[in-house]
């Protein structure tokens, strides 16, 4: 069991590092939101592994709260970033290349 938990924790660590790479590189803030949600799922998985290692139920409310906070945070930030134009996308033909976020949200 210890070996299995060690291997699982190593895989989760590599996964978290890769997700952090995407969180850093972007390029758009929507990619960062997706990456942040996956990072929270990996954290939930890590807490579950620790709970299995210690054979304790102490961390179960923490798992529940992390799941709900991840959903609420992701939805709130996505709604904040989404651009609801009044006109239907008439100027799509003028911008055949994918346009990035408005300047105000541009990072780096």
């Amino acid at each position, binding site marked *: *069991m210890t070996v*299995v*938990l060690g*291997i*699982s*924790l190593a*895989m*989760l660590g*590599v*996964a*978290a590092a*890769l*997700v952090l*790479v*995407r969180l850093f590189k972007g390029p*758009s803030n*929507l*990619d960062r*939101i*997706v*990456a942040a*949600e*996956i990072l929270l*799922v*990996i954290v*939930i*998985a890590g807490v*579950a*592994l620790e*709970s*299995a290692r210690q*054979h304790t*139920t102490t961390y*179960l409310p923490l*798992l*529940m709260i992390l*799941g*709900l906070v991840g*959903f609420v945070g*992701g*939805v709130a930030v*996505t*709604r904040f*970033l*989404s*651009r*609801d*134009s*009044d*006109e*239907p*996308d*008439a100027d*799509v033909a003028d911008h*055949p*290349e*994918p*346009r*990035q*976020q408005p300047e105000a949200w541009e990072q780096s």
Partner: protein
Amino acid sequence: MTWTSVLDVAGAVCLLLGSFLCLAGAVGLVRFPDTLSRLHAATKPQTLGLILILTGLASTLRTWATLTTLVLLAATQFFTSPVSAHLVGRAAYRNRCVDADTLEVDELSEALDRPDSDPST
């Protein structure tokens, strides 16, 4: 081979598979080219990987309180992760982070070009 050892082995296998799925999703998140395909890669560990890990935890701990809490958590993940993925995909389309050349079918732009379309949908 008693029931407890069977459950222990099954739980260990589930924990391993769930962690591997998280790793695969993270690799996809780094390697895929645009937001929608990254979203596709990222939502796999969010549901199936988490379900596997919670199954492993439940069969390791083996109490009814654990089982009910984890079923509740898995159910909320089932309901909430499509919602947030839909919102991210919609925002990506509206912000034109989607490369239109890579889309096989783009029914949304046809629907939006129609004069009687409701722009808020």
